[in-house]
């Protein structure tokens, strides 16, 4: 990529030799002009993204309360968190939520992409429907799930009892493990489209003659998938998975709307706990310390996707 660029710019230099003033001025201005073009975006991102990121790390070392300035307290926020059993429960919840949800999103999203990767009538229409859960505001679909998980009036309980499969209503959100499963299912529901549409784009770039050649050699569907499809989409799959991992790990909306971290803190994640401590609780320092536990995972995800993005190029 870079090489091509230099060849091109060398060419354009050659073309314009009769107009030396233009070349020199153009080359002179390029850096200045470039910075002028990038300046507004950079200014916004530096003030409202990079500065808060650093401020957040600092706040984690202070006892700041809402609207006030705090004192530096060293690692005391962290040491009190690490000795708090609630914090360890939240850590467990967050990892469980992320691992299980991302795994199923990946498997089901990939499966749906493979199913959709063929010609059929209404392909565009089906693809549009598939993206809907991703488009509609999470809070609003969370409201629908919330009512679907009602302990008394749930439609799922109704149909299970009517069909004789169960005798009792399911207490979806009152029991710790049920609540975890319920939220994970809702998260999977919302995340499948991202995997499907992303992977579908990757699948469509695979040359069909590869499959034809494999068929002639007697390869079955599984072998074709395992030996052709999978290796070719791995880089894209890695990028999509790391994106989804960081979003799931730092999730807030779904959990806050449906359970607020309950029952008995069984569904509290880093995001919801830090919100609870910081906004209704007013403890900015402690809240920041909790959300800073997301940073290592973020860093890891950035590294992994960077590696694969480079390889793609």
């Amino acid at each position: 990529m870079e090489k091509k660029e230099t060849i091109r710019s060398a060419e354009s230099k050659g073309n314009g030799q009769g107009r030396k003033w233009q070349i020199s001025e153009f080359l002179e201005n390029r850096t200045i002009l470039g910075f002028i073009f990038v300046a507004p975006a950079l200014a916004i991102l530096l003030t409202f993204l990079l500065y808060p990121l650093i401020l957040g790390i600092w706040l984690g070392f202070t006892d700041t309360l809402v609207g006030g300035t705090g004192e530096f307290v060293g690692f005391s926020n962290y040491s009190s968190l690490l000795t708090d059993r609630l914090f360890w429960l939240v850590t467990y919840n967050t990892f469980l939520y992320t691992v299980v949800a991302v795994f199923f999103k990946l498997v089901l999203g990939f499966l749906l992409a493979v199913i959709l990767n063929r010609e059929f009538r209404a392909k565009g229409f089906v693809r549009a429907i598939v993206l809907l859960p991703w488009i509609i505001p999470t809070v609003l679909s969370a409201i629908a799930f919330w009512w679907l998980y009602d302990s008394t009036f749930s439609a799922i309980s109704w149909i299970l009892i009517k069909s004789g499969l169960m005798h009792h209503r399911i207490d979806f959100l009152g029991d710790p493990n049920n609540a975890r499963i319920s939220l994970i299912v809702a998260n999977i529901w919302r995340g499948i489209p991202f995997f499907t549409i992303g992977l579908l784009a990757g699948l469509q770039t695979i040359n069909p003659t590869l499959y034809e050649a494999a068929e002639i050699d007697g390869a079955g569907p599984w072998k074709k998938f395992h030996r052709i499809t999978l290796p070719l989409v791995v880089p894209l799959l890695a990028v999509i998975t790391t994106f989804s991992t960081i979003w799931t790990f730092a999730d807030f909306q779904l959990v806050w709307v449906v359970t607020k971290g309950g029952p008995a803190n069984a569904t509290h994640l880093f995001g919801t706990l830090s919100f609870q401590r910081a906004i209704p609780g007013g403890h900015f320092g402690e809240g920041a310390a909790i959300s800073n536990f997301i940073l290592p995972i973020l860093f890891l995800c950035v590294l992994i996707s960077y590696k694969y993005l480079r390889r793609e190029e």
Partner: protein
Amino acid sequence: MHEGFRIRLFRFYIPLAFFLIFLLFPFYWMFITAFKSDAELYNLKLNPFIIHDFTIHNAIRLFKETLFVRWMYNTFFIAILSTVVSLTASLLAAYGIQRLRFKGSGPIGIGIFFSYLIPPTILFIPLAAIIFKLRLWDSLWSLVLVYPTFLIPFCTWLLMGYFKSIPKEMEECAMIDGASRIRVFWKIIIPLSLPGIFSCGIFAFTLSWNEYLYALAFISSTPSKTVPVGLVTELVRGDVYHWGPLMAGALLASVPVALVYSFFVEHYVAGLTGALKE
């Protein structure tokens, strides 16, 4: 290649139907709940999957008893303003990085891309502290200021991909004819990338329409709330849930996004996949 109907049924239609039911059911559930009366909602004897007694009472309650219209207006206001700000900044930045190729443009481009990955969950507390200092607490302007932090990275990346597809020769020809860079940008690049700018704007609009955490953290008075926050905080008071109006609100607030989306779905898919492929 010519497979029988039976194979197609088991390998394609049945799995696809299963997925579509799973993905669409929550919307169906939202839809029918919005048009049921309370008496029907809380009657366990009735089949919950169909509407027995169609009513628009929930929507009327939503408009009469809450500030729903006001929340919709707020959400529109913030979404449009932050989209315009972000789109302008991203257009310039994407052109600068993709076409001017100045010293440091590469790292800046990568930096902007990865800043999209920083989740709001990490940023909302320090941002709350900043908003407080700026005396913008409980003001819609706080959200207009903050939303570009996730809109700009996304739009810049999308537009960079779009600019890549415009042949360099067009610019070079114009410059040989004596046009300045800025003129080229304004007269050639902008008109040529209008479809890209358009789909980018749609993305930005839906992203800010959907935002929840910042709006929940920075806004506390009822008339200043956005739709997602207003619905969940005002229609659930303690243990009292107004399911009917809640669903009617969720349905109505999804409509603008769904409409925008259905008209421009091709742009949307192309944008998403384009952004991923980069």
